[in-house]
């Protein structure tokens, strides 16, 4: 079980620390000990204030669609799919996709909730509509 402290970043590096948590079902991001802001993508420095003391914080997974696009693809190649930007409740914004709903129905401002997709070798975060808001 990875621990949410700075030494984990030093040992693994920020990218590996992020991915090793995802592999264990934990969606966590680096948080600055100085300004308390979280950031994505994971780094060794806080891009908000420039300080280097960070810890890991598990995030709620709740977010809001900041922008969305449907990439058009022929049905025989898998059909249309969604690419969006989600702003997490904790502040950071990431690229992702909304699943479980037609891409064209995804709207800016939609409330979404994260899950971890394990279909590939490397897990990644996707979102579904958050009915509870």
């Amino acid at each position, binding site marked *: 079980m990875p621990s949410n402290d700075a030494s984990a970043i030093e040992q693994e590096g920020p990218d590996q620390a992020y991915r090793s948590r995802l592999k264990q079902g934990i969606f966590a991001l680096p948080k600055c000990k100085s300004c308390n802001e979280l950031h994505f993508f994971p780094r060794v420095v806080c891009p908000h204030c420039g300080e280097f003391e960070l810890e890991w914080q598990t995030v709620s997974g709740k977010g809001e669609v900041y922008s*969305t696009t449907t*990439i*058009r693809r022929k049905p025989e190649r898998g059909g249309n799919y969604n*690419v969006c*930007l989600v702003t997490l409740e904790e502040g950071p914004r*990431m690229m992702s996709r909304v699943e479980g709903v037609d891409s064209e129905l995804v709207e800016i401002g939609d409330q979404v909730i994260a899950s971890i997709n394990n279909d590939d070798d490397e897990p*990644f975060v996707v979102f579904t509509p958050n009915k509870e808001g």
Partner: protein
Amino acid sequence: MAHELRGSAAIVGAGLAGCGEAHGRMPLDILAEATHNALDDAGLKLSDVDGLFTGSSYHFMPTLSTAEYLGIKPRFSDGSMVGGSSFVAHTLNAASAIKNGLCEVALICYGSNQRTAGGKLATMSEQQIYEAPYKPRYPISSYALAAARHMHQYGTTREQMADVAVAARKWAQLNPAAFARDELTRQDVLNSRMISDPISLLDCCLVTDGGGAVIMVSSERAKDFPNKPVYLLGTGTAHWHRQITQMPDLTTTAALDSGKRAFAMAGLTKDDVDVVELYDAFTINTILFLEDLGFCAKGEGGAFVADGNIAPGGSLPVNTNGGGLSCVHPGMYGIFILIEAIQQLRGECGARQVKNPEVALVNGNGGVLSSQVTTILGTEAVL
């Protein structure tokens, strides 16, 4: 007090080559042909060049490959890579190098065979590892996300974006060298194949071959050349992100800063600008840059372009060569907006010539709205 670089250097030669399709040519062949034309225009020889400024999607060390090909041994060179805005940024670095005695004759140059070599955007860009799992189309999906956000936040419409493409086409129809000159209507753009909502095929720039080159010298020397010198009045650079996820606000680009910096160096305001050349990789770009450079208020870019302001006969001539949308776009378009501004200021543009322009503004874009570089050029009248 005026900035010491304001008016310190001038462009005395400009040349294009291979715009459209340049069969049988490699990127450096096209670059060299454009360089030949620019040198001819200035009455100079390759052996006069002692400063080299270039960027490439094909050559990892572009100044080395270019100097080797041309057979020159520059004493100063700069391959700063900020995507399509690179060549606009090079104007500042070249003027600075000239001012500091690091070189005397600066060559800023580019060439690409993107169309005949395969018809796809050539890139040496590293993969963005936190975006890759979602398979965005690069770079179009990033621009689509910005357009969708602008539509959501300000009510901008696909029709207004289409009007950017229509205005560009009308300018292209006045430019015999433009690649796409067929009749184009708003409906044609709306009906074109959707690629990444809300951006459809005709919201996207062309994929062509092409090269361009300009020659810059000190203003003292500039008076001895055959052409009317075009003076560098100001350049401002700004970048706030690399990947679209890191762009603070998808409706506001760093042109907000680059524009202010360029105007401050030039000691001018937007009201002094007679002709505007913006990097229109996609129709949303023109709207964003018009707003961020202060030609209309934030959120009003859509209405501004729909009112016909930027088309021939409008209040503000924008992208008078036909732009990346209709004239030429070999991957890194920055050199072409520079050259169109130079030709307008020299009064060489024939049917598309803006009446007696004295000040031209150029805004280069690089990455995914990532790098913005604004340059203000002027004639002797505003020196």
